[in-house]
Each structure stands twice: as structure tokens, then as C-alpha cells.
């Protein structure tokens, strides 16, 4: 029995698992960019509204 019911459901609905994995990688890539390029604080116009 597959222990990943969501993946099975998505595959059954026509969404191939590789797209799910690709989406995860894209999320991870953006978070890595945030970690390396981002910095705390900065100017936030709406802060304190």
C-alpha cells in the first residue's frame, strides 16, 4: 500500500508526481534565495500601520 495518499490522489487526478516534486524544488529554491540574498529589517513602508 502506498504511504503517500496525496501523491496517489494527484496522480489519479492527472497531475504527474514529477510536477509535485518540481513544485517542491521551486519552493526550496526561493527559500534558499531568501536565506542568502535577504536581510533582516530593511525599509518597510507599511510597518506600524
Amino acid at each position, binding site marked *: 500500500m502506498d504511504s503517500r495518499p496525496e501523491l496517489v490522489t494527484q496522480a489519479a487526478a492527472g497531475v504527474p508526481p514529477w510536477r509535485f516534486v518540481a513544485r517542491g524544488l521551486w519552493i526550496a529554491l*526561493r527559500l534558499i534565495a*531568501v536565506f542568502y540574498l535577504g*536581510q533582516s529589517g530593511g525599509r518597510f513602508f507599511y510597518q506600524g500601520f
Partner: protein
Amino acid sequence: MSSPLDLYSARFWLFVIIAVAVLNSLVSRSARTWAFALMNLAFISLYLGKKTALLLVGLLALMPFLRLLRSGRSGPACLFLGGIGTLVLFIFNKRPDLFVARVPALEHLEYLLVTIGFSYVALRLYELARAVREGRHQPPGFAEAVNYLLPFHMLAAGPIQSYDEFVAQPAVRSPLGLSDAMDAFERIASGLFKKYVLANLIQRLLLTDYRPTGPYALFEAQLTFIWLYLDFSAYSDVAVGIGRLMGVATPENFNRPYLARNIMDFWERWHISLSQFIRRNIFIPVQVALIRRTDGQRTLLVASLAFSVSFLLCGLWHQISFRFLAWGAFQAAGLIICNLYRHRLTQRLGGRKGVNQYLANRWIRVAMTALTFEFNVVAVFIQTYPFEVPAWIPGQS
């Protein structure tokens, strides 16, 4: 030590992980409500420290006040006093220096009063009092009041949830599936990327606080509007993503504002929760009151006055200063002109069908979208350009 409201703070994300784990492990409504309330108070305590005890006293005092409002025995004076109290706290949030200069003892309570008067909290407090006073909802219990007024993931930059929407959320959430979790992570990653990579790079590499003049100043004005969108909408993305993970209803705040075809359309796409708050609590009440006074005549004049009152107050909500009053007047002027133009167009083209055909033209659509974009570039320019303001104008910051 960074503020707990800073999305780059490790403490904030530790809090999110704990909140998601706890709220997803609880099934009953009351357990979830109390767990979320305790987490919200714990989060606030990171900010207020020992003064959280005073906040608790204030929240406990709010309970009988809301019951009094609901009982119908309070009279308009009670609502008026409550409104004045909220307004004073709100002004304290914006300009604590004005109060501390006169009563130095307030300095010890500054953080606490600033938190209660914090713009988003003050608007929620008003919304809650109005919903209870009008009999739309029963007064909330203590935990519900905490969860509505101080949800930790919406404190930094909203959205401003309506009390109707807060009450309407399902009693028990459906279990968090992998697909839902993925959507939520995507939203959070997108928000963080927008703020800490895109907005950050634009700010560091291209924004100069308008030091160069000439064509670059025009370019910078466009960029400032784009930067503002990336930075501000990022907070909403993160709040919506965290809300999905926790199973706490968190309204959308932006809907592709750059595609707006006119300034009215823009305010239905930008800071949506604020414009809906203004519509519910300022525009419609003012419009209804004026229509009654004028026996339904002069609808255009009434709408124009309602736009003016709404956006002048909206400007002052952003910041109590001449700059933001000018910004509010500019937005109101845009909305009034847009409304008059639409009225004239409807008359000239023989009704709504003719207007829709006219607006369906691709070139007109492109021109209107570009015009709306540039209108908002000017609005942001008013907000951000370092004007030299004469000393006789009060409230500059």
C-alpha cells in the same frame, strides 16, 4: 534582538511551527480556540514583556463593555465614548511623543498603549464593537476576542479581517492535506521571495530617496510603486499561507492590482481588506446619512462627499500628517472624477451595455490600465518624496 513582527526573525518562524503543530493536533473547536488564544498572547508577550498583564486586564475589561453594548442599555453615549477611547489610543500609536511630552508618566506604558492603538488592532476593535452593538453577533468569549483582535500572523501588516468573516469560519477545519500544505508553503515562499529578494534588491540597487533629478526621478517613482507592491503584498502572502497551515481564515488582500482599469477597480484589488473596511464603516454610513438628508436627490454629490470623507480619514489612518492628508485628497479626487466620468459615459452611450462595449475595446483597456498605474505612481510619490514642508504645517514626521 529583532522584533517578533519581523518575518526574518527566527522566533517568528519557531512560533509558526509550534502553532501549526498544535492547531493541527487539536480537533474540538474550544480546544483550538483556546490554544490559538494562548499562542497569540504568548506572541504579544514577546513584544510587551511584563506589560502583557496590563493588556490582559484591558481585554478582560472589554468583555463587560461588549455585553453592555449588546444589551441595548448602553445608549449612543457608550459607543461614542468607546469610539473616542479607541481614537485616542490610535493617535497615541501614531504620535506617542505628543502624549509623553505632556504626561511623562505615560512613557512607562508607551509600548502597551501603542500595541492596543496599533492601526490594525484599533480597526478590528471598532469592527467588533459595531457588530455587537448592531446585534449581528453575540459578544465573543475571552479567547475568541483575543483571536479576533490579536492574531499573531496578521499583526505585522493585516489583512483587516471583518468580524462577520471571523465568525463565519468553520467550527472544525478539515485535516491539512499534503496538497493544501504545498499551496500554503508556495504562498509563504512567494511572499518571502517578493520581500527579501525582489523588493530588497530594488531598494538596495535602484531606490535613492529621489537624490537624482530628471528622468531618473520619473523612473524611480515607477519603481517605488512596484517596490511598495512587492514589499506590502509579501506580508499578506505570508499571512495567508500561515493561516492556511493553521486552519485560521485569513482574507486575501491583493488581486493583481496592476491590472486595474480605473481607480475604483484598483481599490477592489489593492489592500482589499482596508478598502472593504472603509466601505462598510465609513463610505456606506456617510452615503446613507446624506441620501436621507437630501431625499435621494444629488446622488453624485453625495457619492463625492462620501469618497472625500472616506479617503481623507484613510490618509490619516496611514499617518497623521499633512503628507497623508494630501494623499487621501488625491485618492478622493481620483475616485470622484472616475465616478463622474462613468456617469457621463453611461448617459452618452445609452446605458451599461454601451459602456461595456466601449470598455471591451483592447486599446481603451490598455490606455485605462496605464493611466491607473500612473495615477498610483503619483499617489506613491506623494507618500514617499522627501518634500521640504514648511515648519508651520503641524504633524510632520
